[in-house]
Protein backbone atom coordinates (compact mmCIF):
# COMPACT_ATOMS: atom_id res chain seq x y z
CA UNK A 1 0.00 0.00 0.00
CA UNK A 2 1.30 3.39 -1.02
CA UNK A 3 0.18 6.45 0.90
CA UNK A 4 1.01 10.10 0.50
CA UNK A 5 0.29 12.85 3.01
CA UNK A 6 0.43 16.58 2.37
CA UNK A 7 2.98 16.22 -0.39
CA UNK A 8 4.33 19.42 -1.90
CA UNK A 9 6.77 20.12 -4.69
CA UNK A 10 8.57 23.29 -5.53
CA UNK A 11 10.80 23.97 -8.51
CA UNK A 12 12.69 27.22 -8.14
CA UNK A 13 10.15 29.72 -6.82
CA UNK A 14 7.09 28.11 -8.34
CA UNK A 15 4.98 25.66 -6.36
CA UNK A 16 3.98 22.75 -8.59
CA UNK A 17 1.55 21.21 -6.14
CA UNK A 18 0.96 21.22 -2.39
CA UNK A 19 -1.20 19.48 0.20
CA UNK A 20 -1.47 16.40 -1.99
CA UNK A 21 -2.78 13.31 -0.14
CA UNK A 22 -3.86 9.99 -1.60
CA UNK A 23 -3.70 6.27 -1.08
CA UNK A 24 -3.21 3.42 -3.52
CA UNK A 25 -4.16 -0.05 -2.27
CA UNK A 26 -3.17 -3.45 -3.60
CA UNK A 27 -4.85 -4.14 -6.94
CA UNK A 28 -5.43 -0.46 -7.61
CA UNK A 29 -4.04 1.88 -10.22
CA UNK A 30 -3.70 5.61 -9.85
CA UNK A 31 -3.66 7.54 -13.10
CA UNK A 32 -2.24 11.03 -12.87
CA UNK A 33 -3.44 13.50 -15.47
CA UNK A 34 -2.66 17.15 -15.98
CA UNK A 35 -1.28 19.59 -18.53
CA UNK A 36 2.43 19.80 -19.31
CA UNK A 37 4.43 21.31 -16.48
CA UNK A 38 1.96 20.57 -13.70
CA UNK A 39 4.39 18.27 -11.91
CA UNK A 40 3.40 14.77 -13.01
CA UNK A 41 6.97 13.62 -13.54
CA UNK A 42 8.12 15.38 -10.36
CA UNK A 43 5.43 13.54 -8.38
CA UNK A 44 6.39 10.18 -9.88
CA UNK A 45 10.07 10.75 -9.15
CA UNK A 46 9.22 11.57 -5.54
CA UNK A 47 7.11 8.42 -5.22
CA UNK A 48 9.96 6.37 -6.71
CA UNK A 49 12.34 7.85 -4.17
CA UNK A 50 14.50 9.60 -6.75
CA UNK A 51 13.92 13.11 -5.42
CA UNK A 52 13.07 14.29 -1.92
CA UNK A 53 9.65 15.90 -1.46
CA UNK A 54 9.69 19.62 -0.66
CA UNK A 55 7.17 18.87 2.08
CA UNK A 56 5.01 15.96 3.25
CA UNK A 57 5.54 12.23 3.72
CA UNK A 58 5.36 9.09 1.64
CA UNK A 59 4.50 5.73 3.23
CA UNK A 60 5.07 2.29 1.77
CA UNK A 61 3.23 -0.52 3.60
CA UNK A 62 2.64 1.82 6.52
CA UNK A 63 6.28 2.78 6.97
CA UNK A 64 7.54 6.20 6.03
CA UNK A 65 10.08 6.05 3.21
CA UNK A 66 12.83 8.46 2.33
CA UNK A 67 14.60 8.77 -1.02
CA UNK A 68 16.38 5.53 -2.04
CA UNK A 69 14.73 3.53 0.74
CA UNK A 70 16.08 -0.02 0.50
CA UNK A 71 12.72 -1.74 0.97
CA UNK A 72 11.00 0.43 -1.61
CA UNK A 73 13.83 -0.14 -4.12
CA UNK A 74 13.22 -3.88 -3.73
CA UNK A 75 9.50 -3.51 -4.45
CA UNK A 76 9.59 -0.95 -7.23
CA UNK A 77 9.67 -1.07 -11.00
CA UNK A 78 10.20 2.43 -12.32
CA UNK A 79 9.81 3.26 -16.00
CA UNK A 80 10.86 6.83 -16.61
CA UNK A 81 10.63 9.22 -19.55
CA UNK A 82 13.39 7.49 -21.49
CA UNK A 83 13.36 3.72 -22.06
CA UNK A 84 16.72 3.30 -20.20
CA UNK A 85 18.47 1.40 -22.98
CA UNK A 86 22.09 1.41 -24.09
CA UNK A 87 22.28 2.05 -27.83
CA UNK A 88 25.43 -0.06 -28.17
CA UNK A 89 23.83 -3.22 -26.76
CA UNK A 90 21.26 -5.50 -28.37
CA UNK A 91 17.63 -5.71 -27.28
CA UNK A 92 18.40 -9.04 -25.63
CA UNK A 93 21.48 -7.75 -23.76
CA UNK A 94 19.65 -4.63 -22.62
CA UNK A 95 16.78 -6.65 -21.21
CA UNK A 96 19.11 -9.12 -19.48
CA UNK A 97 21.13 -6.35 -17.88
CA UNK A 98 18.06 -4.49 -16.65
CA UNK A 99 16.60 -7.65 -15.16
CA UNK A 100 19.94 -8.64 -13.55
CA UNK A 101 20.15 -5.13 -12.11
CA UNK A 102 16.89 -5.73 -10.26
CA UNK A 103 18.44 -8.77 -8.58
CA UNK A 104 15.74 -11.16 -9.78
CA UNK A 105 16.96 -14.53 -11.05
CA UNK A 106 15.54 -15.01 -14.53
CA UNK A 107 16.03 -17.99 -16.81
CA UNK A 108 17.14 -17.58 -20.43
CA UNK A 109 13.83 -19.01 -21.67
CA UNK A 110 11.92 -16.41 -19.68
CA UNK A 111 13.88 -13.63 -21.41
CA UNK A 112 13.18 -15.19 -24.81
CA UNK A 113 9.49 -15.59 -24.01
CA UNK A 114 9.22 -12.02 -22.78
CA UNK A 115 10.80 -10.69 -25.98
CA UNK A 116 8.50 -12.88 -28.09
CA UNK A 117 5.50 -11.59 -26.13
CA UNK A 118 6.28 -8.00 -27.13
CA UNK A 119 6.91 -9.04 -30.76
CA UNK A 120 10.65 -8.41 -30.59
CA UNK A 121 11.70 -12.05 -30.83
CA UNK A 122 13.18 -11.60 -34.30
CA UNK A 123 14.90 -8.32 -33.43
CA UNK A 124 16.57 -9.50 -30.24
CA UNK A 125 20.08 -9.40 -31.68
CA UNK A 126 19.78 -5.93 -33.18
CA UNK A 127 21.47 -3.06 -31.35
CA UNK A 128 18.96 -0.86 -29.54
CA UNK A 129 19.97 2.17 -31.62
CA UNK A 130 18.38 0.73 -34.78
CA UNK A 131 15.07 -0.03 -33.05
CA UNK A 132 12.18 2.38 -33.41
CA UNK A 133 10.92 4.39 -30.41
CA UNK A 134 7.95 2.07 -30.08
CA UNK A 135 10.15 -1.02 -30.16
CA UNK A 136 12.37 0.50 -27.49
CA UNK A 137 9.27 1.04 -25.35
CA UNK A 138 8.34 -2.60 -25.88
CA UNK A 139 11.62 -3.71 -24.31
CA UNK A 140 10.46 -1.74 -21.27
CA UNK A 141 7.18 -3.70 -21.30
CA UNK A 142 9.10 -6.99 -21.42
CA UNK A 143 11.13 -5.78 -18.45
CA UNK A 144 8.00 -4.95 -16.42
CA UNK A 145 6.70 -8.45 -17.05
CA UNK A 146 9.93 -10.07 -15.88
CA UNK A 147 10.65 -7.99 -12.79
CA UNK A 148 7.91 -9.30 -10.47
CA UNK A 149 7.62 -6.06 -8.53
CA UNK A 150 4.67 -4.96 -6.40
CA UNK A 151 4.69 -1.29 -7.31
CA UNK A 152 4.89 -0.02 -10.87
CA UNK A 153 5.58 3.65 -11.47
CA UNK A 154 5.15 4.52 -15.12
CA UNK A 155 5.86 7.90 -16.68
CA UNK A 156 3.97 8.37 -19.97
CA UNK A 157 3.99 4.62 -20.69
CA UNK A 158 1.94 4.90 -23.91
CA UNK A 159 4.35 7.30 -25.64
CA UNK A 160 5.36 6.01 -29.09
CA UNK A 161 3.39 2.76 -28.69
CA UNK A 162 1.10 1.65 -31.53
CA UNK A 163 -2.39 0.25 -30.97
CA UNK A 164 -1.07 -3.27 -30.44
CA UNK A 165 1.57 -1.96 -28.04
CA UNK A 166 -1.06 -0.06 -26.05
CA UNK A 167 -3.18 -3.20 -25.82
CA UNK A 168 -0.11 -5.09 -24.60
CA UNK A 169 0.51 -2.44 -21.95
CA UNK A 170 -3.15 -2.48 -20.83
CA UNK A 171 -3.03 -6.27 -20.58
CA UNK A 172 0.18 -6.18 -18.58
CA UNK A 173 -1.11 -3.60 -16.10
CA UNK A 174 -4.45 -5.39 -15.72
CA UNK A 175 -2.63 -8.67 -15.03
CA UNK A 176 -0.39 -6.89 -12.54
CA UNK A 177 -3.40 -5.41 -10.69
CA UNK A 178 -5.19 -8.78 -10.67
CA UNK A 179 -2.15 -10.24 -8.96
CA UNK A 180 -2.44 -7.67 -6.17
CA UNK A 181 0.06 -5.22 -7.59
CA UNK A 182 -0.09 -1.44 -7.47
CA UNK A 183 0.46 0.96 -10.34
CA UNK A 184 0.88 4.69 -10.56
CA UNK A 185 1.00 6.14 -14.06
CA UNK A 186 1.17 9.61 -15.53
CA UNK A 187 -0.47 9.70 -18.90
CA UNK A 188 -2.23 11.86 -21.48
CA UNK A 189 -3.93 8.98 -23.28
CA UNK A 190 -6.32 6.58 -21.55
CA UNK A 191 -4.66 3.31 -20.52
CA UNK A 192 -7.70 1.17 -21.26
CA UNK A 193 -7.95 -0.39 -17.81
CA UNK A 194 -11.13 -1.68 -16.09
CA UNK A 195 -12.67 1.41 -14.50
CA UNK A 196 -13.39 -0.16 -11.13
CA UNK A 197 -9.67 -0.50 -10.46
CA UNK A 198 -8.57 2.91 -11.59
CA UNK A 199 -8.61 6.18 -9.70
CA UNK A 200 -7.67 9.42 -11.36
CA UNK A 201 -5.73 12.26 -9.85
CA UNK A 202 -5.73 15.54 -11.69
CA UNK A 203 -2.88 17.96 -11.15
CA UNK A 204 -3.97 21.42 -12.20
Amino acid at each position, binding site marked *: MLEVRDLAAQRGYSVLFSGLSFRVDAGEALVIIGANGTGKTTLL*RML*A*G*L*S*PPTDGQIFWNGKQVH*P*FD*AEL*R*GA*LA*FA*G*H*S*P*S*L*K*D*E*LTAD*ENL*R*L*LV*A*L*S*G*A*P*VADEAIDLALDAVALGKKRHL*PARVLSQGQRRRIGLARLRLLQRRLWILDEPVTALDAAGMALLAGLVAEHLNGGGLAVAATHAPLGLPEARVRTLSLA
Partner: protein
Amino acid sequence: MTAGDAAARLDDADDNAGAIWPAIRWGLARDLRIALRSRAELGVQLLFYVIVVTLFPLATTPERTLLATMGPGVLWVAALLASLLSLPRLFAGDYADGTLEQIALSPHPLAALVSGKILAHWLTTGLPVAVLAPLLGIQYSMSGDALVILTIALLLGTPILSLLGAIGAALTLGLRAGGSLLALLVLPLYIPILIFGAGSVDMWRSGLDVSGNLSLLGAGLLLAIVGAPFAAAAAVRIAMD
Protein backbone atom coordinates in the same frame (compact mmCIF):
# COMPACT_ATOMS: atom_id res chain seq x y z
CA MET B 1 39.67 -11.78 -17.28
CA THR B 2 38.40 -10.99 -20.76
CA ALA B 3 35.21 -9.10 -21.43
CA GLY B 4 33.63 -12.31 -22.69
CA ASP B 5 34.27 -14.06 -19.39
CA ALA B 6 33.01 -11.06 -17.51
CA ALA B 7 29.86 -10.99 -19.58
CA ALA B 8 29.32 -14.71 -19.17
CA ARG B 9 29.68 -14.42 -15.43
CA LEU B 10 26.93 -11.87 -15.39
CA ASP B 11 24.47 -14.72 -15.46
CA ASP B 12 25.54 -16.16 -12.11
CA ALA B 13 25.29 -12.69 -10.63
CA ASP B 14 21.62 -13.37 -10.01
CA ASP B 15 22.12 -16.12 -7.46
CA ASN B 16 22.91 -13.94 -4.45
CA ALA B 17 21.34 -10.61 -5.17
CA GLY B 18 21.91 -7.91 -2.61
CA ALA B 19 25.47 -9.05 -2.03
CA ILE B 20 28.41 -6.92 -3.06
CA TRP B 21 30.24 -9.07 -5.62
CA PRO B 22 27.35 -9.58 -8.05
CA ALA B 23 26.82 -5.82 -8.07
CA ILE B 24 30.49 -5.09 -8.79
CA ARG B 25 30.43 -7.75 -11.50
CA TRP B 26 27.30 -6.25 -13.05
CA GLY B 27 28.88 -2.81 -13.35
CA LEU B 28 32.19 -4.22 -14.60
CA ALA B 29 30.78 -6.61 -17.19
CA ARG B 30 28.26 -4.12 -18.51
CA ASP B 31 30.66 -1.21 -18.92
CA LEU B 32 33.36 -3.44 -20.44
CA ARG B 33 30.86 -4.71 -22.96
CA ILE B 34 29.73 -1.20 -23.85
CA ALA B 35 33.37 -0.07 -24.11
CA LEU B 36 34.17 -2.94 -26.47
CA ARG B 37 31.24 -1.91 -28.69
CA SER B 38 32.62 1.63 -28.91
CA ARG B 39 36.27 0.77 -29.50
CA ALA B 40 36.83 3.82 -31.71
CA GLU B 41 36.25 6.10 -28.74
CA LEU B 42 38.77 4.16 -26.63
CA GLY B 43 41.30 4.28 -29.46
CA VAL B 44 40.94 8.03 -29.80
CA GLN B 45 41.70 8.52 -26.11
CA LEU B 46 44.80 6.35 -26.24
CA LEU B 47 45.97 8.05 -29.41
CA PHE B 48 45.55 11.41 -27.67
CA TYR B 49 47.85 10.18 -24.90
CA VAL B 50 50.45 8.90 -27.38
CA ILE B 51 50.42 12.14 -29.38
CA VAL B 52 50.70 14.43 -26.33
CA VAL B 53 53.69 12.42 -25.10
CA THR B 54 55.28 12.52 -28.55
CA LEU B 55 54.87 16.29 -28.96
CA PHE B 56 57.18 17.25 -26.11
CA PRO B 57 60.51 15.95 -27.48
CA LEU B 58 59.61 17.57 -30.82
CA ALA B 59 58.78 20.89 -29.19
CA THR B 60 61.66 21.08 -26.72
CA THR B 61 65.06 19.51 -27.22
CA PRO B 62 66.71 16.38 -28.57
CA GLU B 63 69.20 16.54 -25.68
CA ARG B 64 69.20 13.14 -23.96
CA THR B 65 69.78 14.04 -20.32
CA LEU B 66 67.14 16.79 -20.44
CA LEU B 67 64.64 14.44 -22.04
CA ALA B 68 65.32 11.75 -19.46
CA THR B 69 64.61 14.34 -16.72
CA MET B 70 61.39 15.55 -18.35
CA GLY B 71 60.09 12.15 -19.40
CA PRO B 72 58.33 10.92 -16.25
CA GLY B 73 56.63 14.28 -15.68
CA VAL B 74 55.37 14.49 -19.25
CA LEU B 75 54.09 10.92 -19.20
CA TRP B 76 52.26 11.55 -15.94
CA VAL B 77 50.65 14.78 -17.12
CA ALA B 78 49.55 13.04 -20.33
CA ALA B 79 48.11 10.18 -18.25
CA LEU B 80 46.17 12.72 -16.16
CA LEU B 81 44.78 14.40 -19.27
CA ALA B 82 43.86 11.06 -20.87
CA SER B 83 42.03 10.07 -17.69
CA LEU B 84 40.24 13.42 -17.58
CA LEU B 85 39.23 13.12 -21.23
CA SER B 86 37.58 9.76 -20.62
CA LEU B 87 35.80 10.63 -17.35
CA PRO B 88 32.55 11.91 -18.89
CA ARG B 89 32.06 8.40 -20.31
CA LEU B 90 31.77 7.02 -16.77
CA PHE B 91 28.31 8.43 -15.89
CA ALA B 92 27.22 11.03 -18.44
CA GLY B 93 26.02 8.50 -21.02
CA ASP B 94 24.03 6.56 -18.45
CA TYR B 95 22.60 9.81 -17.12
CA ALA B 96 21.47 10.93 -20.56
CA ASP B 97 19.74 7.67 -21.56
CA GLY B 98 18.08 7.09 -18.20
CA THR B 99 19.96 3.94 -17.25
CA LEU B 100 21.57 5.74 -14.30
CA GLU B 101 18.07 6.09 -12.78
CA GLN B 102 17.65 2.34 -12.98
CA ILE B 103 21.10 1.83 -11.45
CA ALA B 104 20.29 4.22 -8.60
CA LEU B 105 16.96 2.45 -7.96
CA SER B 106 18.44 -1.06 -8.02
CA PRO B 107 18.26 -3.05 -4.79
CA HIS B 108 21.98 -3.78 -5.22
CA PRO B 109 24.26 -1.53 -3.16
CA LEU B 110 24.91 1.52 -5.32
CA ALA B 111 28.53 1.92 -4.18
CA ALA B 112 29.24 -1.63 -5.40
CA LEU B 113 27.63 -1.01 -8.80
CA VAL B 114 29.65 2.19 -9.08
CA SER B 115 32.84 0.32 -8.08
CA GLY B 116 32.33 -2.08 -10.97
CA LYS B 117 31.92 0.83 -13.36
CA ILE B 118 35.08 2.50 -12.03
CA LEU B 119 37.03 -0.75 -12.40
CA ALA B 120 35.86 -1.02 -16.02
CA HIS B 121 36.91 2.59 -16.58
CA TRP B 122 40.39 1.87 -15.26
CA LEU B 123 40.75 -1.32 -17.31
CA THR B 124 39.88 0.57 -20.49
CA THR B 125 41.86 3.77 -19.85
CA GLY B 126 44.34 3.65 -16.95
CA LEU B 127 45.69 0.18 -17.63
CA PRO B 128 46.49 0.78 -21.34
CA VAL B 129 48.13 4.09 -20.37
CA ALA B 130 50.39 2.31 -17.87
CA VAL B 131 51.16 -0.53 -20.28
CA LEU B 132 52.10 1.87 -23.10
CA ALA B 133 54.29 3.99 -20.81
CA PRO B 134 57.55 1.96 -21.13
CA LEU B 135 57.21 2.09 -24.91
CA LEU B 136 56.70 5.84 -24.95
CA GLY B 137 59.39 6.36 -22.32
CA ILE B 138 62.00 5.14 -24.80
CA GLN B 139 61.46 8.39 -26.74
CA TYR B 140 62.79 10.17 -23.67
CA SER B 141 65.88 7.93 -23.50
CA MET B 142 64.86 6.76 -20.04
CA SER B 143 66.83 3.80 -18.70
CA GLY B 144 65.30 0.36 -18.20
CA ASP B 145 65.06 0.69 -14.41
CA ALA B 146 63.48 4.13 -14.65
CA LEU B 147 60.88 2.71 -17.03
CA VAL B 148 60.07 -0.10 -14.59
CA ILE B 149 59.60 2.36 -11.73
CA LEU B 150 57.50 4.64 -13.93
CA THR B 151 55.24 1.75 -14.92
CA ILE B 152 54.81 0.56 -11.32
CA ALA B 153 53.97 4.11 -10.24
CA LEU B 154 51.43 4.43 -13.07
CA LEU B 155 49.88 1.06 -12.20
CA LEU B 156 49.41 2.29 -8.61
CA GLY B 157 48.39 5.82 -9.56
CA THR B 158 46.01 5.47 -12.52
CA PRO B 159 43.35 3.59 -10.48
CA ILE B 160 43.35 6.54 -8.05
CA LEU B 161 42.73 8.84 -11.02
CA SER B 162 39.68 6.77 -12.02
CA LEU B 163 38.40 6.61 -8.43
CA LEU B 164 38.76 10.33 -7.66
CA GLY B 165 37.61 11.22 -11.15
CA ALA B 166 34.41 9.23 -10.62
CA ILE B 167 33.44 11.54 -7.75
CA GLY B 168 33.96 14.59 -9.96
CA ALA B 169 32.16 12.98 -12.90
CA ALA B 170 29.14 12.21 -10.72
CA LEU B 171 29.12 15.66 -9.10
CA THR B 172 29.06 17.45 -12.46
CA LEU B 173 26.19 15.38 -13.91
CA GLY B 174 23.48 17.50 -15.49
CA LEU B 175 25.46 20.74 -15.26
CA ARG B 176 25.70 22.87 -18.37
CA ALA B 177 29.46 23.47 -18.31
CA GLY B 178 30.01 20.00 -16.85
CA GLY B 179 33.10 19.16 -18.88
CA SER B 180 35.21 22.18 -18.02
CA LEU B 181 33.96 22.23 -14.43
CA LEU B 182 35.00 18.60 -14.13
CA ALA B 183 38.57 19.53 -15.09
CA LEU B 184 38.63 22.35 -12.53
CA LEU B 185 37.26 20.05 -9.86
CA VAL B 186 39.37 16.97 -10.50
CA LEU B 187 42.79 18.26 -11.62
CA PRO B 188 43.66 19.81 -8.22
CA LEU B 189 42.80 16.48 -6.59
CA TYR B 190 45.21 14.76 -8.99
CA ILE B 191 48.17 16.93 -7.88
CA PRO B 192 49.37 14.74 -4.97
CA ILE B 193 49.29 11.65 -7.20
CA LEU B 194 51.26 13.54 -9.84
CA ILE B 195 53.86 14.63 -7.29
CA PHE B 196 54.42 11.18 -5.80
CA GLY B 197 54.11 9.38 -9.13
CA ALA B 198 56.44 11.51 -11.23
CA GLY B 199 58.64 12.14 -8.20
CA SER B 200 59.41 8.46 -7.71
CA VAL B 201 61.47 8.27 -10.93
CA ASP B 202 63.29 11.49 -9.99
CA MET B 203 64.19 10.05 -6.59
CA TRP B 204 65.52 6.89 -8.21
CA ARG B 205 67.66 9.01 -10.57
CA SER B 206 69.16 10.85 -7.59
CA GLY B 207 69.96 7.51 -5.97
CA LEU B 208 67.29 7.71 -3.25
CA ASP B 209 64.97 4.97 -2.02
CA VAL B 210 61.69 5.02 -4.00
CA SER B 211 59.80 2.60 -1.77
CA GLY B 212 58.47 5.50 0.32
CA ASN B 213 56.86 7.18 -2.69
CA LEU B 214 55.43 3.96 -4.03
CA SER B 215 54.08 3.03 -0.58
CA LEU B 216 52.37 6.40 -0.36
CA LEU B 217 50.79 5.83 -3.77
CA GLY B 218 49.66 2.38 -2.59
CA ALA B 219 48.22 3.84 0.59
CA GLY B 220 46.44 6.49 -1.45
CA LEU B 221 45.02 3.77 -3.67
CA LEU B 222 43.67 1.81 -0.69
CA LEU B 223 42.13 4.95 0.76
CA ALA B 224 40.52 5.81 -2.57
CA ILE B 225 39.18 2.25 -3.00
CA VAL B 226 37.51 2.45 0.41
CA GLY B 227 36.17 5.99 0.14
CA ALA B 228 35.64 7.03 -3.45
CA PRO B 229 32.85 4.58 -4.46
CA PHE B 230 30.70 5.77 -1.54
CA ALA B 231 31.32 9.42 -2.37
CA ALA B 232 30.59 8.81 -6.06
CA ALA B 233 27.41 6.86 -5.17
CA ALA B 234 26.23 9.73 -2.96
CA ALA B 235 26.91 12.17 -5.81
CA VAL B 236 24.94 9.99 -8.24
CA ARG B 237 21.95 10.10 -5.87
CA ILE B 238 22.18 13.86 -5.60
CA ALA B 239 22.22 14.09 -9.41
CA MET B 240 18.88 12.22 -9.56
CA ASP B 241 16.97 15.09 -7.95
